[in-house]
């Protein structure tokens, strides 16, 4: 690491698990999480020269979120004939049906995956990536008041889903 700027290898080695966790919580499944991380790492590698030492994980989370949002927008732009007939081509909002769930974390992930993107993204950035509201506003391009509202509503939706799923405690 020179001048506080890590090498790409150091990012992958020391922050890979964090990066993958954020990608997985956003995407809801391993296949899309892997794609997100790979694309994010390409951008990270290109962007390291311009990285200014600060909250490295905040910077990494913003990049993987931008990759995720770009992918969401790309899929929304697709013509109708490229949509649901091929489920593999649509970013799922819920985990794959054949995914094996074990333990409470899987119930939470399922509820998280069912949230609309507009709520899931700020909630993940806040509670998984630990970004400030200001950083989330910057990463998502929405006003900070909207971030606050979406985080609150997202958490309420999540809580309702967990209760409906029989999960009462945190």
């Amino acid at each position, binding site marked *: 690491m020179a001048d506080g700027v890590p*090498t*790409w*290898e*150091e990012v*992958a*080695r020391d922050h*890979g*698990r*964090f990066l*993958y*966790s954020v990608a*997985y*919580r956003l995407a809801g499944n*391993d*296949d899309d*999480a*892997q*794609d997100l*991380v*790979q*694309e994010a*790492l*390409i951008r990270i*590698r290109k962007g390291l020269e311009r990285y200014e030492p600060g909250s490295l994980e905040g910077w990494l989370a913003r990049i993987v979120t931008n990759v995720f949002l770009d992918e969401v927008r790309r899929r929304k732009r697709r013509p109708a004939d490229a949509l649901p007939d091929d489920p593999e081509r649509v970013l799922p909002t819920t985990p794959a049906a054949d995914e094996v769930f074990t333990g*409470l*974390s899987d119930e*939470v*992930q399922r509820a*998280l995956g069912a949230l609309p993107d507009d709520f899931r993204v700020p*909630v*993940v950035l*806040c*509670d*998984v990536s630990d970004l*400030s*509201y200001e950083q989330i506003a910057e990463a998502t391009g929405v006003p900070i*008041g909207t971030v*606050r*509202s979406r*985080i*609150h*509503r997202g*958490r*309420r939706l*999540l*809580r309702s889903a*967990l209760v409906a799923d029989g*999960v009462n*405690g*945190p």
Partner: protein
Amino acid sequence: MTTFDDALDRDMLSAHLDDELTDAERAAVEARLEASAEWREELAEVRAARDALRNLPEREAPAGFWDAVHAGVVADDHEAADDDVVVPITAAPSHPRRRWAWVAASAAAVAAVVAVVVVPHRNEVSPNVATVVAQHGAQGSDNGDPVSMLAPVGPLAGLRR
């Protein structure tokens, strides 16, 4: 009935948990919490959701993911491979596919070809092709020269009349 302004105020409950309020806002929220059981209940709900998310374990990438990513980067960047010392990512918490999955896929394809071409295996074709070729080749060869050994192709394919 919940008004728009009331909904905005309730958003402050999450912001309160996240320490994202100004001093004045925090004081207003705390006063409201003192007075309203409904607000306290909603605060407990969002706190439970927040705690559930923050208690989620980190997610491990599937086995081989990081190795394949690393291999893909090295393959993509010849200059870096020449100039830099590549730090092994064996200590990376976990492991790829797609964009750089071609590395693994190519290796698998090569292995499959090698297995088919090089590895000896039992001939399960019936009748035995070598025997048929020898028999028909003998019939089709007039003088035993090498070119005439191509004759068996005709009979087997039903081309000779």
